[in-house]
């Protein structure tokens, strides 16, 4: 007999999968397939999935300790203090804005396969306007619809990849990939980018419907989702390497469309563009909701200006936070389009996200030590020592991924430093001014003789 909780578990798994499936992921796979050889690519995806399983265990334990909390802000705050938590949160928000440019660019590349005359700024603005408009209006997509769309995208990718594997390979014989670099070097470069493929799965953690969800359903939804994603990406990557273009950069940004055309002809291109539209809309919609929620929370903490907590009395939508996120994403997308820095931005985003993941794992390891008494309905099976090693590895891969594409390595480093540096400065300003503000409030309160 199928129970209601079985559906709930399926919802969590599908949500985690949907959050990770993005056009930029396909583009990243395309780039990696042209940068490292097949063995390194497939192994890097597997290693990345393994790392993400450890990450998932840590996040699951953290979320069971602080159910439904706004993830990163809460976990890092209790583990490492306010300033560190704020710094990483701000870095994540800046990364989300940069990621929007990467994602809309990847979407545009796929779209132009069927509609070549649409300029990138137009497709970018339309996609963002649609998602932001829906959120400003307070319209909520039915969960079952979102999940059905995710299942459709997974099915389409799996079927096209399977079909591509069934036809003879077209990769030119003797094609050298990876510039002859040692296998270990290729692997080190690729793992950080491969981790990027899975990013987003953890956004399911705050979505538990009740305390009971954090004992098993939420914790186990993430590893199940990761297995689904691993199989999907491995299948896709395998199909991709069997059909690499002779000019390695050709079609690297929309490999899913290339495979669609190869297997199903023109209808395949349309099908993969539909999959791209669904990927970008569902990812953006979920990402916008989650990010605006974080911004609203920061606004309530007075870490951001009052605009961040502006809500619509008619719909209850956090219009201030949604507008901030929408505007930041659009600006970042336009800047990346003007300067054509999407590749560097994607590598910088991957780098920041690896560090964010390292922070999650590190936070869980630290809380095992400093707060052993807090109830943990779910406990990661990974020993603390291993978690510490994984955190260090993630940070290292986050640095190495910046050099995955030598032509843009310097720019990737600059973008990453700008994101992290801005976050550090912003958090320092907030913490110092908030401290001054609280001091003044106490002074005023005492002078008034207020009880509160």
């Amino acid at each position: 007999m199928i129970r209601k909780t079985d559906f709930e578990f399926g919802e969590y798994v599908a949500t985690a999968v949907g959050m990770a499936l993005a056009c930029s992921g396909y583009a990243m796979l395309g780039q990696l397939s042209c940068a490292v050889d097949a063995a390194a690519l497939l192994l890097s995806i597997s290693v990345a999935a393994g790392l993400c399983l450890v990450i998932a265990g840590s996040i699951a334990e953290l979320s069971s300790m602080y159910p439904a909390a706004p993830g990163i802000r809460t976990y890092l705050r209790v583990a490492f203090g306010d300033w560190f938590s704020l710094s990483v949160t701000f870095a994540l928000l800046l990364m989300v804005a940069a990621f929007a440019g990467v994602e809309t660019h990847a979407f545009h590349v796929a779209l132009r396969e069927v509609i070549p005359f649409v300029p990138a700024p137009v497709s970018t603005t339309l996609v963002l306007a649609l998602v932001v408009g829906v959120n400003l209006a307070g319209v909520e997509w039915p969960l079952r619809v979102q999940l059905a769309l995710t299942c459709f995208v997974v099915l389409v990718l799996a079927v096209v990849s399977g079909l591509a594997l069934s036809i003879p390979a077209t990769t030119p014989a003797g094609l050298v990939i990876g510039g002859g670099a040692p296998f270990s070097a290729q692997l080190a470069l690729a793992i950080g980018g491969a981790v990027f493929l899975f990013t987003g799965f953890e956004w399911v953690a705050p979505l538990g419907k009740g305390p009971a969800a954090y004992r098993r359903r939420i914790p186990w939804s993430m590893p199940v989702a990761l297995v689904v994603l691993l199989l999907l990406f491995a299948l896709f990557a395998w199909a991709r390497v069997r059909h690499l273009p002779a000019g390695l950069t050709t079609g690297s940004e929309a490999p899913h469309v290339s495979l669609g055309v190869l297997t199903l002809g023109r209808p395949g291109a349309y099908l993969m563009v539909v999959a791209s539209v669904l990927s970008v809309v569902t990812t953006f919609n979920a990402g916008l909701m989650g990010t605006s929620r974080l911004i609203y929370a920061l606004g309530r903490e007075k870490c951001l200006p009052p605009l961040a907590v502006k809500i619509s009395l008619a719909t209850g939508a956090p219009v201030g936070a949604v507008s901030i996120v929408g505007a930041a994403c659009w600006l970042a997308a336009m800047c990346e389009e003007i300067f054509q820095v999407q590749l560097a931005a994607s590598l910088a985003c991957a780098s920041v996200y690896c560090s964010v993941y390292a922070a999650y794992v590190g936070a869980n390891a630290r809380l095992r030590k400093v707060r052993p008494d807090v109830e943990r309905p779910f406990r990661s099976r990974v020993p603390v020592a291993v978690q510490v090693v994984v955190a260090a590895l993630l940070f290292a891969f986050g640095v190495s991924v910046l050099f995955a594409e030598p032509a843009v390595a310097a720019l990737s480093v600059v973008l990453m430093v700008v994101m992290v540096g801005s976050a550090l400065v912003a958090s320092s300003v907030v913490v110092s001014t908030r401290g001054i503000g609280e001091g003044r409030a106490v002074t005023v309160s005492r002078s008034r003789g207020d009880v509160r």
Partner: protein
Amino acid sequence: MGELFSSLLSFREQVNGAERLRSLLKGWDRVVTVEASDTGRKYTMLFTDTRAGEPRAAVAGEEVDISLKAEERVLIDVFRGVQNPAALFLEGNLQVFASDKDQVRLDAITLILWD
């Protein structure tokens, strides 16, 4: 019934007396439970027709839309406007199980009442 119940009654009075909330609560019919994690006390409040209903003891197995859970002292402070629920939520001292939209709307109620 205890101090938590009194604080919920007080909260209900404030919500129903705040005309600014009428627009916010229009069309927002929700069942909200409030549970004290240390004492086990659990109450339910209905929001219907832009008003908050009288709190009552929660019924086991009842379907709810929003669930709040924290230590009783924290809940009392939240519903009396003494502590910022958003800050407590961020610190992990107040658990709120609800859709994103309902979480924001619930917080907006306290924002309008006490900020």
